[in-house]
């Protein structure tokens, strides 16, 4: 109880609350501007938090995150252009509803769905993170190493047909972290005699360069669009209809809960974020509807599902971060960077060792959702003003801001050079179709992977242990299947062998490490996996014979 009170006092401190209000406002703005992603806003917030105590810094970043996740709906509903990829599906019904003369109701449904999604995922985060951390205590260095590999392959597999490019990007991210002095023995690597390279690249400068700088360059590429404002709207007279919206949400509570659960689960998966969750939740809401004829024409469920799910994603993404030290998506990876910046290394013992900080994260998550509701109407007016600013002006100001922010990390001009070089690299990668998410995850997790590899080999030099220990085998199996997944997707509905036997093979394969783990629950799960796999194979083999 004392720890909870300590955490609560940390968060309700007037300075922290002020930063949180600014953070939510900044997040709402960032989320509402098409082309300005939430990850970019979080990355740019990072340098500010450096001088803050850890709880205050994280509360500020969580506020930006919660605001950003909710901000995308304003642009999507009012202009038809989603502010962020995680609010793409909101435009399917939000924009038609706004055009049909109900913009206030559409915004109300969006805002309250975001709020409910955030609160549900915050509750699940509080419940699940400690449980997952208990499982994480079983992990040894072999398992952590394989978990990082799994996180990278899953993120790369999201690149779909560009899987190889995704894997190259992930490996390149791991390589970037090897430049400079080796953490274990202090030997210089790939420094080519340069002091700049010997100190290594500051990974936050790398993240800002890869993500923010390269995005700004992409926005400025076309001279005509660079000189255009996002919208020519002079003003928007919209009053958010809170009461009617809450009524509609109560009548569709199943959609709210189902979508929040989809968001939470998607967030837990490494690499999968709001951009996937909102489409998935929308699709499920449509499939579950008895009458789906109004979807796409302004159906409230078409707004509830994406907004509840995209706000629930972050609770999911923070769960593996807090429990295992492995981020669930890019924004959680940046949060990991913030923790590391304050010399806090999250892992299975994080919640036990740093309970006040863990509670501060939970409380900040809840509180930020309430602040978001309060600020949405006010920010709506500012949003209209910001959309009238020309893209090149916005980009130049952000770039100047990023430059000072990066310098502030270590008072070093070299970090600005890092920002510049990785900005160029990120831009080139975007042009050649390389996904940036695996590279960012590789940069963030590179040291963790090497450290655990070294620890594992120090305990036992047998490399086969990476495939003989239950958890590392489990992660290795799902890493392999995640790499095959894009090929499986390509062959769906073709009747190929891969299509028929992919899911039973996954189940059959993961039953092996589950058996090896022992215990009643895991052995039962292993038997269940074999039973389901056999059933699917029997049905599909039957079909093959008949065919």
């Amino acid at each position, binding site marked *: 109880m004392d720890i909870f009170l300590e955490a609560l006092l940390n968060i309700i401190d007037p300075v922290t609350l002020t930063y949180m209000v600014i953070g939510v406002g900044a997040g709402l703005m960032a989320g509402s501007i098409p082309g300005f992603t939430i990850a970019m806003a979080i990355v740019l917030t990072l340098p*500010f938090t450096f*001088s803050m105590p850890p709880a205050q810094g994280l509360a500020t970043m969580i506020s930006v995150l919660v605001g950003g996740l909710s901000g995308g709906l304003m642009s999507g509903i009012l202009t038809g252009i989603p502010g962020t990829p995680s609010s793409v599906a909101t435009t399917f019904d939000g924009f038609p509803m706004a055009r049909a003369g109900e913009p206030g109701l559409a915004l109300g449904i969006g805002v309250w769905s975001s709020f409910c999604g955030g609160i549900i995922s915050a509750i699940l985060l509080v419940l699940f993170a400690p449980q997952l951390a208990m499982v994480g205590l079983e992990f040894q260095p072999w398992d952590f190493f394989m978990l990082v590999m799994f996180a990278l392959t899953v993120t790369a597999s999201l690149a779909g047909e560009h899987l*190889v*490019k995704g*894997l*190259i990007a992930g*490996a*390149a991210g*791991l*390589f970037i972290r*090897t430049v400079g002095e*080796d953490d*274990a*023995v202090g*030997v*210089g*690597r*790939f420094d*080519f005699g340069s002091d700049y390279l010997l100190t290594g690249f500051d990974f936050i400068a790398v993240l800002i360069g890869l993500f923010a700088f390269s995005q*700004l*360059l992409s926005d*400025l*590429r*076309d*001279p005509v669009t*660079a*000189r255009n404002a996002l919208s020519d709207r002079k003003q928007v007279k919209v009053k958010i209809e809170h009461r009617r919206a809450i009524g509609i949400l109560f009548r569709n509570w199943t959609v709210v809960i189902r979508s929040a659960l989809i968001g939470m689960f998607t967030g837990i998966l490494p690499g999968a974020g709001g951009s996937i969750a909102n489409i998935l939740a929308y699709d499920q809401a449509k499939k579950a509807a008895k009458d789906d004829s109004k979807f796409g024409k302004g159906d409230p469920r078409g707004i509830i599902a994406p907004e509840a799910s995209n706000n629930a994603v972050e609770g999911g993404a923070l769960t593996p971060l807090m429990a295992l030290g492995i981020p669930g998506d890019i924004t959680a990876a940046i949060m990991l960077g913030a923790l590391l910046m304050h010399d806090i290394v999250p892992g299975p013992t994080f919640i036990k060792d740093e309970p006040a900080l863990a509670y501060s994260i939970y409380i900040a998550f809840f509180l930020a959702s309430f602040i978001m509701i309060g600020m949405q109407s006010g920010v709506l007016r500012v949003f209209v003003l910001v959309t009238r600013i*020309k893209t*090149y*002006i916005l*980009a*130049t*100001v952000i*770039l*100047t*801001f990023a*430059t*000072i922010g990066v*310098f*502030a990390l270590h*008072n070093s*001009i070299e970090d*600005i*050079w890092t920002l*510049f070089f990785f*900005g*160029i690299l990120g*831009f080139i990668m975007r*042009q*050649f*179709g390389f996904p940036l998410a695996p590279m960012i995850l590789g940069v963030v997790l590179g040291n963790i*992977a*090497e450290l655990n*590899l*070294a620890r594992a*080999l*120090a305990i036992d*030099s047998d490399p086969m242990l990476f495939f003989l220990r239950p958890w590392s085998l489990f992660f290795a199996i799902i890493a392999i299947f995640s790499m095959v997944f894009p090929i499986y997707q390509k062959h769906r509905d073709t009747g190929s062998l891969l299509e028929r036997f992919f899911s039973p093979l996954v189940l059959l394969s993961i039953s092996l490490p589950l058996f090896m783990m022992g215990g009643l629950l895991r052995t039962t799960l292993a038997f269940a996996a074999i039973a389901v796999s056999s059933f699917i194979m029997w049905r599909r083999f039957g079909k093959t014979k008949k065919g």
Partner: protein
Amino acid sequence: MSFNRDSLVALCLILASGGLMLASFEIREPDYGVLSPAAWPRIIIIIIGGLSVIYLIQSFSTPQKDISPVPKKTLKGFVLYWRNVIAVFSIFALYLLALPYLGMLVGNILFSFILLTVLGGWNAILTHLVIALGASGGMWLLFTHVLEVFLPRGSLTGF
């Protein structure tokens, strides 16, 4: 089977992997520690090299999808198409080189003013000046006085 842009990128990656592998042999091997400092980077380089070979093979068999088509394949067309990006790169590089002499305040004001004017044209030069002074000055005040970050002073300007 045709040599395309992806093939070129894959070839560059293979060459880079080869170069980095050679460079990894320059890493000093200490007498202590279980994992050699060169081991982990070498594993990554081998993976990148292997994946690049697959990428090269794929590039030959997959028809090229041009993600960002450059309209003209002449130097003038290239420069015209990428002029804003080239401008940002060049102005940023000059800004970085001049930073020790101009300092963060003057450097940022000049950088943002020049960049705004190059990207937005000379018609709104006064607006650009006001934005450059306001944004850079505001950020400088915020960082130096509120966040108490020491921003670099220029050897020529003194602030």
